[in-house]
């Protein structure tokens, strides 16, 4: 079925093809650029093209494909690097050279690599959609193959297969392979959703101790430029206690992606000591790559994440940054001449965002396993102003808000998470969990730590007026201890050994500071000045 291009305005192309369905993929022009139908009218359809439309001419052919935008799901995804449409970037590099040109297609299915497939299903077995029908060893990773739909198996053979080969079929003749396709904009089904109860340990002290995250939860990291969003996201990607990480570079810097790849290739997962890249999938749609593909990139990523969740794994999706996705949505909406909402964003920004974030969660899968998908999204508010629409839309659904503070960043306090404005809705549940699993004193230590920081804030104003010299000894002790908490505990250098702290280490560190506080307080009660008390303990430290 072919038609012709009748109009072009930026990435939006009008075609005279009939019989298309909404969100169907069409191939546009002689070079076959990928596009998605976004509007249908009686005589024509409007197509959103995922690639640069420059040079496209009116009258060039357009072809429908009858399928939606899908992701290929199967062995070979791990350690992979894809663009927003899931084209393997290594493959594109091999084929087209260092620059990405329009119209090239490549997919996971092109890979000639063979996988050992084992199965315990045989002829006559009835399977339901999502049931485990076999497994593939992908490095050290157990890759489970799930049934694409309900049915009775006619044949199934173990052996070595490339991803596109048929390993068996249903009685009605439908083939089964180790790879399946899924439309990216539709959430993958599960039996039911559960409440998050387990912590997502990130190795970042300020997060795990003050604003703990949950497996299956969502968090946003808003911050102006230079506040360390990307470094924090990357640290979390390196050290989180999860089985698998999907990292989306959505409209960000190309050099940053190169840095991430190089660094991850040399690092090991602190929990399993396997190579970090073996548990990572990267989706990179940098800021100069086509805007429409940037919009699709987060859906491609979340679909891959859900696929692994369905095997009963704990998956973490990191997106840097969701603001660039929202901007892509705005650009597309404006080229479709839709009525704008706040600051030009379409009015459906909040509902699309909520729809995306709801794909996170702890679930009981169709095959009975329990898996989780957690999300940490960075937000880049213009001018560092958190009242803008994207931050506000995120806040409605996010379970944790880790606000990055420009003034902390300017003082080189990293991670620059503000400890007054940030919050986590999971703190109650996680506090109980850590009290049970790490130390009984966890929640008390947390409370004391927060009190010290709050009192420091109040005292700091006084100190500015009367000077440190004019203050009471016990107030100076609070300032002294709070400073230690800030500099030794909350600060964490991402480029050193200190970049990762396990919960037990976190507890030991904070307890040492609090114990020192108690000792000094006792000395002051005995009539010592702070200087004398400090000297007594011999616990002088580098407070600079």
């Amino acid at each position, binding site marked *: 079925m072919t038609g012709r291009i*009748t*109009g*072009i*305005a930026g990435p939006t192309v*009008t075609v005279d093809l009939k019989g298309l369905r909404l969100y169907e993929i069409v191939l546009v022009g002689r070079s076959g650029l990928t596009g998605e139908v976004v509007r249908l009218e009686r005589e024509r359809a409007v197509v959103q093209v995922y690639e*640069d439309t*420059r*040079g*496209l*001419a*009116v*009258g060039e052919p357009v072809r429908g494909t009858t399928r939606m935008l899908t992701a290929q799901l199967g062995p070979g995804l791990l350690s992979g*690097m894809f663009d927003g449409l899931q084209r393997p*970037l290594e493959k*594109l*590099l091999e084929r*087209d*050279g*260092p*620059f*990405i040109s329009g119209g090239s297609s490549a997919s996971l299915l092109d890979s000639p690599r063979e996988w050992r497939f084992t199965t315990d299903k045989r002829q006559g077995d009835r399977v339901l959609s999502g049931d485990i029908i076999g497994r593939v060893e992908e490095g050290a990773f157990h890759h489970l193959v799930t049934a694409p739909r309900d049915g009775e198996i006619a044949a199934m053979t173990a052996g070595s297969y490339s991803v596109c080969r048929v390993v068996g079929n249903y009685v009605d003749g439908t083939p089964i392979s180790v790879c399946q396709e899924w439309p990216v904009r539709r959430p993958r089904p599960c039996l039911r959703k559960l409440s998050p109860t387990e912590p997502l340990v990130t190795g970042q002290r300020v997060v795990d101790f003050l604003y703990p995250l949950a497996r299956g939860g969502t968090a946003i990291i808003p911050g*102006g*430029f*230079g506040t360390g969003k990307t470094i924090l996201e990357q640290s979390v990607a390196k050290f989180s206690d999860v089985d698998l990480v999907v990292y989306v570079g959505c*409209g960000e*810097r*190309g*050099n940053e*992606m*190169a*840095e991430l*790849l*190089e660094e991850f290739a040399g690092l090991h997962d602190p929990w399993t000591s396997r190579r970090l890249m073996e548990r990572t999938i990267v989706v*990179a749609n*940098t*800021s*100069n*790559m086509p*805007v429409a593909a940037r919009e699709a990139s987060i859906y491609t990523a979340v679909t891959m994440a859900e696929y692994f969740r369905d095997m009963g794994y704990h998956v973490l999706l990191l997106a840097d940054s969701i603001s*660039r996705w929202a*901007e892509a949505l705005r*650009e597309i909406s*404006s080229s479709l001449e839709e009525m*704008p909402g706040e*600051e*030009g964003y379409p009015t459906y920004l909040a509902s699309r965002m909520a729809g995306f974030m709801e794909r996170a969660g702890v679930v009981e899968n169709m095959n009975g396993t329990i898996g989780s998908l957690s999300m940490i999204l960075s937000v*880049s508010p*213009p*001018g*560092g*102003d958190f009242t803008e629409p994207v931050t506000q839309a995120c806040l409605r659904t996010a379970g944790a808000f880790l606000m990055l503070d420009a003034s902390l960043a*300017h*003082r*080189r306090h990293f991670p620059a998470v503000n400890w007054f404005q940030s919050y986590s809705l999971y703190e109650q549940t996680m506090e109980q969990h850590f009290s049970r699993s790490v130390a009984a004193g966890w929640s008390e230590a947390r409370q004391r730590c927060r009190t010290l920081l709050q009192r420091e804030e109040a005292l700091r104003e006084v100190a*500015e*007026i009367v*000077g440190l*010299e004019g203050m009471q000894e016990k107030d100076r002790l609070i300032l002294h201890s709070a400073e230690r908490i800030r500099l030794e505990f909350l600060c964490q250098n991402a*480029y050193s050994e200190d970049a990762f702290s396990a919960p037990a280490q976190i507890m030991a560190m904070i307890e040492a500071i609090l114990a020192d506080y108690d000792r000094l307080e006792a000395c002051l009660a005995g009539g010592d000045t702070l200087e004398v008390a400090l000297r007594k303990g011999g616990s002088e430290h580098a407070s*600079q």
Partner: protein
Amino acid sequence: MRLSEHAYRTVSSIRGPLIFLDRVREVRFGEVVRIIPPEGKPLEGEVIKIDGDTVLVQVMGETRGLDTASTVIFSDAVKRAPLSVEVVGRVFSGSFAPLDNEPPYIPERWGAISGAPINPVARARPQDFIETGFSTIDALNTLVRGQKLPIFSCAGLPAKEMAAGILKNARLAGGGRFVVVFVALGLTHHEYSYYMEVLAGMQGGFAAFINRAGEPVIERLLAPRFGLAVAEYLAFCHGMDVLVLITDMTNYCDALREVSTAREELPGRRGYPGYLYSDLSSLYERAGRIRGLAGSVTMLPVVTMPEDDITHPIPDLTGYITEGQIVLSRELHQQGIFPPVDVLPSLSRLMQQGIGEGRTRSDHRQLANRLYRHYARGRDLRRLEAIVGRDGLSGQDRQMLDFADVFELELVHQGGTRRTVSESLDTGLALMQRFALEG
């Protein structure tokens, strides 16, 4: 491919820089057209929208005097740049017309001016130190090959002297020189002649694309793309290290706003179009290195912050795309300090890889961190000093105040002298020793 040029005389309306044509067939999006008025010089234009047989053309240049009887010739090609190493040593206008009275060269090939995005896996991580001769950059906010590092200036600050200083003094690790691509956007004649004098003294060679304040606004959108197409070609086809200086990006963004408004697009923050971020990144992201290839494109855009406001959309979006920023301060300038770089908000994101043993010096990282921290502390205390007075501060605090002053006078200030990175670090080390400061 069409076999012949298509010419039409079906202009239905002209609105500012936009021409509407009817009954046009098989036109390309982004196609270059020539507009020939009954009288006067021909103009160039670009197809920006097609709806059936109605075509919207954006005219490059002055549209005064155009009328609906004009002939429009369609070229069947998108805007391309003639590429050749002979571009080095030449001066062009914003639309790639020679300004130096030399004849045009024969291109080795033609390249689309908008370029194509570099595949992220093809990128090589920028990590080779560049010595700029300024302590505030070399020691504290190190620039590396393939980085994009803007200078955030304010009206009246010596950004051009600083940019010129970098052009003159920048050396690669082995002492090698850069080829400079200079893109001037909306410069006054005064600034233009200053830069041309600097460029004339460049040893490594340069190519310049000049659009002055009185020249067509639309050329400001083209000139950086020509410049970058040339830079990419020299870097990745001829293995050269190219330094691209674009000044002033604020004029670029204003031109984009002007054109966007003429197209009746929906305005975003402060009237700039919603796609300003994507548009800026289509320029900035062309900096970089490619694995397995020798050359590099390093970019130094100059941004004048309107109202000295770093949260204004232009510096804000620039900062989100570039790998750091060098911020100039009015206060330091008034004290006669040159370059007046405010170290605290300045940042180089790629510094970590470019410094240390084997690149600069093994003590570089630690020294830079300490200098930064002490200076930041001194600056904090200045505010306190304003409230409680110098006498209200402890002896240690008074010392930090002095440190901040001396830091500005001796490390930041260097006038016209070029310092090697070792000299910069030694200056810093001497400061630390004088104040007996440890970690």
